[in-house]
């Protein structure tokens, strides 16, 4: 789960990482007073996508009226398709230089990695890799002060700048561990004449650890209503814009199914990995989600492992009865309890395929042919 900048910064602040003085607004109430108290301010749209600065999502003001109108302007705008609902107004700080700092996990090394660069700021993604220092952290000893000294040495920082940056690194690592983060990022970490502070803040926490999140971790809804419903069922679901509703079990096979639809000239309405071990009830709920997006056809591709084919078959029969399906549906069913599943479908007059090639080409021919449910014909 991604946190908004203002949430990440609140967590940083609680954990001793300096951030600019700021306040959060969802309307103009209090904006004038805050600006007057603070002086020159930055007004920052709170959106989860990157590249906000370049998209015009950050404005500056030095007068109360100007601040109000810019808040209004931002709250009326969209950044990369997302409606701005909140702004963070912060004191403007004197920037001597902009650094970059992030901690995440390197999957191929199976280790935590700290990234640091003196080329912080908006274009960090364009910075050549050799200008980004990578330091792997052994989780059994954690990030120790000596490692931060070596990092600042490689960055070429000296004196106060180095010491304060080292402090921030140590605290950022604590945040990373304490909050089960997948990513914490400060870009830029700005050096002012007196301190270094987090001028921006990104934080992604690990949903799998949600049960042990500290109470100060807020909940952020990033999903569409349908995606959220799927999520509650433990299903990975992403809305796409094609024509065939797809349900499969396993991310890889789902992607491969989408690839096949594309290969044979169609496209998917969604990505749905119904996961392993889904029960009959969960499968039925997943099917209802699929239908709610009005696809032109359904393709169910089940390779039973933990998922049992008979569960899927029973669920499909139940949904079909309840909803009186009119669209073409093709089912491919192999693996655990395959014979049982096939038999349940056959009892209801529904045919299933063993071959994924046949299933995919069948659903496409049905689509092109006009949309009747052949299995029931």
């Amino acid at each position: 789960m991604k946190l908004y900048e203002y949430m990440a910064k609140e967590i940083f602040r609680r954990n001793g990482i300096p951030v600019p003085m700021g306040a959060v607004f969802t309307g103009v109430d209090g904006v004038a007073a805050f600006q007057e108290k603070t002086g020159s301010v930055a007004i920052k749209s709170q959106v989860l996508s990157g590249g906000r600065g370049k998209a015009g999502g950050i404005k500056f003001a030095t007068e109360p009226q100007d601040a109000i109108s810019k808040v209004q302007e931002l709250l009326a705008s969209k950044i990369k398709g997302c409606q701005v609902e909140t702004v963070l107004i912060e004191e403007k700080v004197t920037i001597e230089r902009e650094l970059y700092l992030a901690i995440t996990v390197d999957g191929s090394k199976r280790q935590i990695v700290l990234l640091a660069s003196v080329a912080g700021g908006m274009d960090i993604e364009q910075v050549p890799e050799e200008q980004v220092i990578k330091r792997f952290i052994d989780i059994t000893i954690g990030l120790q002060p000596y490692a931060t000294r070596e990092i600042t040495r490689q960055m070429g920082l000296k004196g106060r700048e180095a010491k304060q940056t080292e402090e921030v690194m140590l605290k950022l690592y604590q945040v990373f561990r304490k909050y089960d983060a997948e990513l914490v990022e400060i870009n830029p970490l700005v050096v002012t004449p007196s301190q270094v502070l987090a001028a921006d803040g990104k934080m992604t926490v690990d949903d799998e650890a949600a049960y042990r999140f500290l109470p100060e971790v807020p909940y952020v809804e990033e999903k569409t209503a349908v995606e959220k419903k799927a999520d509650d069922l433990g299903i990975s679901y992403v809305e796409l814009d094609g024509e065939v509703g797809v349900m499969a079990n396993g991310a890889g096979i789902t992607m491969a199914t989408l690839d096949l639809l594309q290969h044979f000239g169609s496209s998917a309405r969604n990505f749905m990995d119904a996961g392993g071990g889904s029960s009959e009830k969960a499968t039925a709920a997943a099917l209802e989600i699929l239908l709610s997006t009005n696809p032109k056809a359904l393709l169910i591709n089940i390779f039973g492992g933990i998922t049992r084919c008979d569960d899927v078959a029973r669920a499909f029969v139940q949904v079909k009865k309840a909803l009186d399906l009119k669209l073409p549906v093709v089912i491919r069913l192999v693996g655990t309890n395959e014979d049982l599943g096939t038999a349940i479908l056959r009892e209801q007059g529904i045919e299933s395929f063993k071959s994924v090639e046949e299933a995919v080409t069948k659903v496409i021919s049905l689509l092109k042919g006009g949309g009747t449910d052949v299995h029931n014909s």
Partner: protein
Amino acid sequence: MSIILNQTTRIIVQGITGTQGQFHTGQMIAFGSKIVGGVSPGKGGQEVHGVPVYDTVEEAMLKQQVDASVIFVPAKLVKDCALEALEAGIKTLVIVTEHVPLHDTLEIMAYAEKQKAEIVGPNTYGLISPGQCKIGIMPNNIFMPGEVGVVARSGTLSYEIVYQLTGAGVGQSSVVGLGGDRVVGMSFIQVLEKFEADPATKAVVLVGEIGGNAEEKAADYIKGMTKPVVAFLAGKSAPPGKRMGHAGAIIERGKGTFKSKVEALTAAGVSVANLPWEVGPLVKQALAQGSEKVYG
């Protein structure tokens, strides 16, 4: 022959009294795996499918000779059970459970390194040497003993590929699911090394997907392999920037794309199949060429 598992491998099941643990213990026994014990705290003294249940791994290992363990416990308990197996001296550990918190996985991996143990998973269907032994949750009936090693990141997709292989009459020496999480124990390269060294394996199928750089790294290793490798990759049609489930399918900074993976593998001499049912024929072709190379 095969890698990691064979007919003598003695296995314990952690979480044997749970629904999944019970069901798959039965399935593993039916496949011929030697399940010598199960662990379930507070349930010591019971039996599951005739297998004795112990309270702790240490107790199981006092009473049985054990080569490997498979974990079926809920995600919250995985770290504790994995560390238990590792401290007790288990050197091959398969973690089937999905949804393990990332930081827990990192701690498990660090301790496994210290204990010099190999971990498959988390979030894996396990590994199997057809005709000999399986550890995990894969369906029993799609495999066929043979001489092709299969290694995959994704679970069900590797069943699909194995199904295609078996359908084409191409049997498997061993099949390994690395697990679908961002951090997993064994990597493509570690499994490829074992296949390269295994006399019973004549060719290898690598099943990958977009996201991460595991396939690119594997390609580097494959350059030095003597055995032919065929690959199939999922995610060609995925729109950039959308996260497709747990698959690591986050396309970032031009790395981990379908294109970069195909290029890296092709450059390493790998035949990359376009469609799942092309894998079997490509493997047969590679094996035929391989025989020519060696014997012709």
